[in-house]
């Protein structure tokens, strides 16, 4: 396993070099997981990307860094201490004289800590001092004269304008890493083609630079770096995805044809991706025997489908517009983050009151208020479960990783239409912005369940009632535009036709109709869609958690097993509302120790567990510093709990 990190000022190409590395090393046959950390800033602040590559699938990052690739001093100042003994730092040889105090983008708190450390070690405050300390503990140093190598590349390419080539330094840091790892430079060419898409000239220019650096490292340093990543057989059907792209693709598969959004970090990436992919292919499964809506009025598709993405004026409009489209019979969704969802709450209540299927995808980020706009948190669980005045049914579900996010997105639309209610799909910044190699999901098993959707014009004599009382409390749902099915909707309490009613008898019946759908949800959704058990069923020690902590927890459990701690099971909750109380009670009935792991302050899921199932965890591992758990961090925290029975472990790793 390799843990590789690259950093630099935002806007200087850190992202593209990270993508280049991730793709190129994947192309060499390795699985990757990459984590992106960045400030709420466009240019200048420090961002970094940590990629773990392995011959087995990886689901999280680890704390130790084996190679730190850099082209600015700030990255080394900030991250040198994370590099393991025997690891490597690749840096710009010309910056050794840079002084800590001259770097304006390092926060005072970080500067003070670094200064104190350097003083304690008895050295000065230049980059050279930091590197000397690293070297002293066995870190290998790889000074790269980027400027000279750019000049050399310019000579090879016959390019006089060196400013054109300056942006290549980040690519060069990747090439130097490849040289250390004895990885195949031709795979970098693949990566460049991926990173720069159609721009062939840019690919070739960068590749020329890569070769110069690769050769420079080969001929100027000994090839004794302990990790090497030679080509391996490429796993089949591997794709590089992040949470926003995989959810976007899943929406297309799910039949979502209307998506709204108001720009917000980190959710907006999904909508922008969908806008780019708005026209898509149609398959010919079942011989193209499509179920056309009656509203198509004999129109036929000619080979392409379309998802309409609308950027709205705010999140109030975003949810309302999606609901408007849903009333017209369309699978519709909106995508947002915490502050946006705050605005959506009134629309959510209206959708609940009028039994409108709509999917709200939420990428949680650090709150409250603006909070940490570009950082990670699982702070919105209780908010989404209870959001809105009055009582109305909704489903809240959470995905643990990219693959789950794909299938869950499709399920979210099925649930929404089947039970005629809003579905909130919780994801988070870590899923949104991480990159992972996964196998292409199997779409062959996907079924789209539209519930009681009326798909024909009616004769008008049926006396259609949108909110007709039925045995299971689900009423046949006609889209607007259906002949013979005129109905009314209102946010007021209403009768079966949808007209305002303040009649106490009707009020009680309508409340019962809506709210008892939650019971139907509990009965109809199979247990394995609500909770997932990782490990043995009869363990004494259980971890309970939800969402993107899944990856670090599973990887941590593997590490602990290797250390002989193999008796821990992990209960992952996927449906958080209505809460799977019975399943939890049954599964946790024999548990002697229950460790709640969440990325929020309060242990929000544990509160639901106590409220709904009467089960209280014995220990908590919580984190709310804005950075996702690493697997090593989870493993250390679990060991802390097991060895010292620490009640509440609050971790704080990540820069």
């Amino acid at each position, binding site marked *: 396993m390799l843990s590789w990190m690259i950093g630099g000022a935002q806007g200087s190409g850190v992202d593209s070099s990270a993508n280049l590395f991730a793709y190129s090393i994947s192309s060499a046959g390795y699985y990757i997981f990459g984590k992106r950390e960045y400030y709420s800033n466009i240019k200048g602040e420090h961002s970094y990307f940590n990629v773990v590559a392995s011959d087995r699938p990886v689901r999280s990052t680890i704390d130790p860094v084996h190679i730190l690739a850099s082209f600015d001093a700030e990255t080394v100042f900030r991250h040198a201490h994370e590099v393991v003994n025997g690891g490597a730092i690749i840096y710009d040889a010309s910056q050794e004289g840079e002084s800590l105090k001259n770097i304006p983008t390092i926060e005072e708190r970080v500067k003070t800590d670094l200064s104190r450390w350097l003083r304690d070690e008895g050295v000065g405050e230049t980059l050279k001092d930091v590197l000397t300390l690293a070297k002293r503990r066995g870190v290998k140093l790889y000074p790269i004269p980027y400027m000279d190598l750019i000049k050399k590349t310019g000579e090879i390419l016959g390019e006089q304008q060196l400013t054109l080539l300056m942006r290549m330094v980040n690519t060069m840091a990747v090439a130097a890493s490849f040289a250390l790892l004895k990885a195949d430079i031709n795979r970098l060419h693949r990566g460049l083609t991926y990173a720069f898409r159609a721009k062939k000239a840019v690919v070739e220019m960068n590749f020329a630079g890569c070769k110069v650096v690769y050769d420079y490292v080969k001929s100027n340093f000994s090839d004794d770096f302990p990790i090497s990543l030679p080509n391996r057989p*490429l796993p089949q059907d*591997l794709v590089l995805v992040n949470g926003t792209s995989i959810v976007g693709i899943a929406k297309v598969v799910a039949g979502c044809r209307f998506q709204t959004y108001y720009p917000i970090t980190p959710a907006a990436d999904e909508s922008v991706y969908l806008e780019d992919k708005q026209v898509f292919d149609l398959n010919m499964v079942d011989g193209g025997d499509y179920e056309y809506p009656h509203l198509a009025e004999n129109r036929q598709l000619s080979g392409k489908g379309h998802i309409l993405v609308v950027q709205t004026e705010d999140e109030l409009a975003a949810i309302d517009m999606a609901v408007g489209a849903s009333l*017209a019979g369309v699978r519709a969704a909106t995508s947002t983050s915490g502050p946006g969802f705050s605005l959506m709450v009134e629309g959510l209540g209206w959708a609940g009151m009028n039994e409108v299927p709509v999917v709200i995808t939420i990428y949680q980020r650090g709150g409250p208020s603006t909070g940490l706009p570009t950082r990670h948190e699982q702070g919105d669980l209780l908010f989404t479960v209870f959001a809105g005045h009055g009582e109305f049914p909704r489903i809240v579900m959470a995905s643990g990783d990219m693959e789950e996010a794909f299938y869950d997105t499709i399920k979210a639309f099925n649930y929404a239409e089947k039970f005629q209610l809003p579905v909130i799909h919780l994801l988070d910044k870590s899923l949104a912005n991480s990159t992972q190699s996964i196998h292409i999901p199997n779409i062959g098993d996907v079924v789209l369940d539209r519930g009681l959707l009326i798909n024909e014009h009616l004769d008008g004599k049926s006396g259609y009632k949108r909110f007709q009382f039925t045995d299971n409390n689900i009423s046949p749902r006609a889209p607007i535009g259906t002949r013979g099915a005129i109905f*009314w909707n209102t946010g007021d309490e209403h009768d079966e036709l949808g007209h305002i009613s303040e009649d106490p008898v009707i009020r009680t019946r309508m409340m019962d109709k809506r709210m008892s759908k939650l019971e139907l949800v509990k009965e109809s959704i199979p247990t394995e869609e609500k909770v997932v058990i990782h490990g043995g069923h009869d363990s004494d020690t259980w971890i309970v958690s939800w969402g993107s902590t899944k990856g670090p927890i599973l990887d941590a459990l593997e590490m602990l097993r290797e250390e002989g701690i193999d008796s821990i099971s992990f209960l992952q909750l996927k449906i958080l509302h209505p809460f799977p109380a019975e399943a939890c009670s049954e599964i946790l009935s024999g548990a002697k120790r229950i460790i709640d792991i969440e990325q929020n302050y309060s242990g929000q899921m544990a509160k639901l567990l106590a409220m709904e199932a009467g089960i209280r965890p014995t220990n908590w591992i919580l984190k709310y510093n804005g950075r996702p758990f690493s697997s090593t961090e989870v493993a250390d925290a679990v060991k802390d709990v097991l060895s010292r029975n620490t009640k509440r472990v609050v971790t704080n790793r990540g820069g």
Partner: protein
Amino acid sequence: MTVTQKLTAAHFRTPLFNDWCPGCGDFGILASIQMALAELQIEPHRAVVFSGIGCSSKTPHYINVYGIHTVHGRPLPFAIGAKLANPDLTVIAVGGDGDGLGIGAGHFVNAGRRNVDITYILYDNGVYGLTKGQASPTLRRGLKTKALPRPNINDAVNPIALAIVSGYTFVARGYAYDTRHLKELIKQGIQHKGTSFIQVLQPCPTYNDIHTKEWFAGEDKIDPVSKRPTPRLYKLEEIGYVAEVQSDSEEERVKRRVEAIRLSYEWGDRIPIGVFYNDPFTPTYEERIAGIAPVYLEAAPAWQPIRTKSLRPVADVTNIFNELKVVQ
């Protein structure tokens, strides 16, 4: 599909008890909408009326077409969602002046930027009726309507001017008690390709004791010669005003807009009603979508099959995944 029976206003009525105050201007607007739909022979199931919250927003319940009574201030986003999903629908949004220009002002402005083919009718009586008569965004500063404990200290927004600068391509004003005239404006608004805005002046007999039916009729202004009231309202079409943009040029648009805005400030003794601005050239939002994705014309969201008859997805994302695929 053939219309077998000629539709009349009666076809657009529901049997519900209407709980507006006696003499409310809402009745005239409701009747005008029903007459307009009938005269245009729009089949009831192909039309949908969206509303916000307030007295006037009960309108959909009294019309026999799809009726969606939404959230305070938000009929426009709901309406736009439905129209873009199924462009076959005739979509009308209605709401009060507080709904549209107070809590919904953001949507009001941004709907103008899109020019979706819908009609928005604003019931303007200067007060919040259902909450017992507070000042609305169109009540002028210094006025003290019946329920206000102090005179209004906010300035009024100019709905016509705001609509024009926001980009609405059909902007008109009617009067609730002139249903024949208002009905024609609504018909024109529905037939206009793009977002139509119709401000309707209406007395609130319960809470607005200033802008009463008598005030609009000029009963306080008796002509010394004829001894008859001098009505405040006059019709733009009767003074030869040209509302229509004559050619697809920005210069021509600006000229008509400036003229319309100038007229919109006329208030007090003479108040114009009629069409202020009509631009048939600016492309609708639907046309703009089709410009990017021509497939929208045959594949609007509500017209697309999403699954096969055996419930499998029809979308093929192989090519999307191929772009993300790792190759050697």
